[in-house]
């Protein structure tokens, strides 16, 4: 490896050729502030438009200050990261950004969690020396995401996520100069675009320009209504991240404290989406075996590979971008919706509450779930199966508002019957988890044998596209995994071109899977947090006594008492869905 020697702040540094000044400084323990720059190292995502100019440094012999995020180190370079010229320039840049930014931080959704606010605080800004016009733009509220462009600093991180990582292509910088904004085509609102609501734009937005639609007040109201029975389900990835909102180290599992907090918030029953994840495996796994059986029996019309369907961002993606392939994904509803459907039928009957009087709340690491639960096909007579979906962040707010000292809560269990789950369900929270869970059940159902090794290590990891062949007792099953919609697109294109040899593919819209979801505590560019959450998920799985979905006793009971068997008529009605061609939704006015 060719290396280069340079001096940064009087310190001689040796770095690999091609290293930027910003990274070289970091290696030398010098933290140059950045705003538009974003590097999610473990996910191989980098945004460096050199737009904000906060990271400028002085390089000896150069007339102008240089943005360190895009300036490559050269042999013998002498860099100063904090002399008076640099500090003045940096402060001026920040003041100029602030001069076109609202200062109503106290009532901003990102208050206390805003990178611009933090920087203003660190820089000790007490006065903005530039007064002038402020740009204004209409607020855009969609079912999941709010765009408040007045708070946008044009860092272009959202654009990079939407276009390069997710290849959804909804957001672009439009117009020019002072009038420029990041917007969908023709400046339509998000709900008139191909937005999947994956929320990755929200996850990287440094300010309050992109936030989620907040339903916490709806939940407070529902909990206060004596005529309602309010139940809650929590997705697997939430327990691996919620602790971060209370200052815990990333990777802390707070399953028990979370259940305790939800009970103290006043939910009548504290249930687990994991239960529904086990149910999903029963349906989806059976569907996979059914398709494979028919295919191996000589039926060439069977749609293969089967794609997973538990991720609503992914569902929207193929409905918009690959509608002609919408018969390929499993028809199984997502765990959130399976939970809602079972709660408002089976469980409502069990406790003798009318569907209208039962409020189902979901806690999700996801923003697309807010949209999913509002889809027409998931309601009966206008009453949705899941009434409100809130993010991990919103749950943290709810807990803090309710005077609950999260740290000191005891570990409590979920309620039954919809709170019991297996290790297979927990791993739904990470990339590779759904397909591993499906393999655990499908293998045993197909072969009639007990799995010797429950852990399918070959399906785990963080590489964007992974493949493995699982031996189903002499029958080789080819599995594909993709996370991040851009990678999903690659596998989809292969299927379209007839080049795919997979039998089943797991797809999750967010990089890392749900642990990296758009509703999770903000990582602020530190992707090691997402890795830590992944480890926590596998730890939770390993610690479970039951680790295969079909062995969940309450799932067995649900089939005995109510559903019959997987893919039964009742299952089809309650647990499966169909997809739409949404490509026509975006047309000329």
């Amino acid at each position, binding site marked *: 490896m060719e290396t280069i020697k340079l001096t940064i702040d009087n310190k001689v540094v040796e770095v690999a050729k091609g290293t930027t000044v910003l990274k070289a400084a970091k290696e030398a323990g010098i933290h140059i502030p950045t705003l538009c720059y974003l590097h999610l190292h473990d996910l191989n995502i980098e945004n460096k438009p050199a737009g904000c100019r906060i990271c400028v440094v002085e390089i000896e012999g150069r007339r102008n200050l240089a943005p360190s995020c895009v300036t490559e180190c050269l042999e013998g370079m002498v860099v100063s990261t904090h002399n008076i010229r640099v500090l003045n320039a940096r402060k001026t840049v920040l003041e100029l950004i602030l001069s076109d930014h609202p200062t109503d931080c106290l009532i901003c959704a990102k208050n206390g969690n805003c990178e611009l606010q933090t920087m203003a605080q660190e820089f000790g800004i007490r006065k903005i020396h530039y007064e002038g016009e402020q740009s204004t733009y209409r607020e855009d509220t969609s079912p999941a995401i709010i765009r408040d462009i007045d708070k946008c600093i044009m860092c272009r991180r959202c654009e990079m996520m939407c*276009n390069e990582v997710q290849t959804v*292509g*909804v*957001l*672009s*910088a*439009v*117009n*020019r100069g002072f009038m420029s904004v990041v*917007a*969908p*085509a*023709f*400046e339509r609102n998000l709900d008139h*675009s191909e937005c999947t609501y994956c929320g990755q734009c929200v996850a990287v937005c440094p300010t309050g320009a992109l936030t989620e639609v907040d339903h916490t007040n709806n939940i407070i109201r529902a909990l206060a209504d004596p005529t309602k029975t309010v139940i809650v389900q929590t997705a697997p990835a939430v327990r691996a991240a919620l602790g971060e909102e209370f200052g815990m180290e990333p990777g802390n599992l707070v399953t028990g404290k979370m259940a305790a907090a939800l009970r103290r918030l006043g939910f009548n029953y504290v249930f687990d989406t994991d239960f529904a994840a086990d149910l999903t495996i029963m349906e989806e796994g059976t569907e996979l075996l059914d398709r494979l059986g028919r295919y191996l029996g000589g039926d060439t019309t069977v749609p293969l590979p089967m794609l997973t369907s538990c991720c609503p961002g992914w569902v929207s993606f193929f409905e918009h971008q690959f509608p002609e392939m919408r018969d390929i994904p499993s028809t199984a509803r997502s765990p959130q919706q399976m939970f809602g459907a079972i709660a408002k039928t089976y469980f409502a009957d069990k406790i003798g509450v009318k569907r209208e009087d039962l409020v189902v709340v979901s806690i999700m690491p996801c923003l697309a779930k807010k949209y999913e639960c509002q889809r027409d096909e998931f309601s009966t007579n206008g009453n949705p199966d899941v009434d409100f979906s809130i993010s991990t962040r919103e749950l943290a707010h709810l807990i803090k508002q309710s005077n609950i000292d999260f740290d000191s809560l005891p570990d409590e269990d979920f309620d039954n019957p919809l709170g019991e789950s297996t290790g297979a369900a927990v791993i739904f929270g990470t990339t590779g988890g759904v397909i591993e869970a499906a393999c655990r059940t499908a293998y045993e159902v197909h072969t009639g044998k007990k799995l010797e090794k429950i852990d399918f290590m070959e399906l785990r990891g963080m590489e964007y596209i992974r493949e493995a062949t699982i031996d189903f007792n002499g029958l080789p099953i080819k599995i594909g995994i993709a996370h991040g919609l851009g990678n999903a697109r690659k596998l989809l294109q292969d299927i379209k071109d007839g080049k795919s040899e997979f039998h089943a593919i797991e797809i999750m819209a967010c990089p890392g899977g749900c642990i990296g979801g758009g509703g999770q505590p903000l990582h602020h560019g530190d992707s090691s947090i997402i890795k830590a959450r992944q480890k926590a998920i596998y730890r939770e799985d390993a610690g479970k006594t039951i680790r295969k979905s079909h062995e969940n006793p309450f799932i067995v009971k649900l089939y005995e008492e109510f559903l019959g068997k997987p893919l039964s008529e009742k299952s089809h009605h309650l647990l499966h869905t169909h997809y739409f061609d949404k490509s026509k939704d*975006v*047309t*000329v*006015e």
Partner: protein
Amino acid sequence: MAIIKLSESKLNELRDVCKSFNNDKGELINVLHKAQGIFGYLPAEVQEVIAKELSISVAHVYGVVTFYSFFTMLPKGEHPVSICLGTACYVRGAEKVIDEFKRILNIGVGETTPDGKFSLACLRCVGACGLAPVVLVGEKVYGRVAPDGVKDIVAEYAK
């Protein structure tokens, strides 16, 4: 906005243009240039076709269209009015002429009257500086235009 129906033959012409640039996304600006030549403006449907042909997002196409002032999403009027803002015309009072057109037609620069008759645009130097300030209506050139002459020019076409 009214429903815009673009003729199939023009759309095919547009697809041929994209093809002539090998459907290369790097040629977006050239394609847009030609497209505006074909349609006179760049309505949403045209941008959607271009996005599809060049395999880029519509948002990106729209971003480029809105960045360059040359590109317009508004159809030009039956009689496009252009006022020269070159140095000579400018110092001889072109600005006041524009203001008068704006007042009489009740539209801004870059806009089209609701009846589709007139559109208003500015340009830089038509090479007739001796006639400054210069106004073009379609292909016809009007020289030494004073603000009080504007109403007569408009009247000529208003029938």
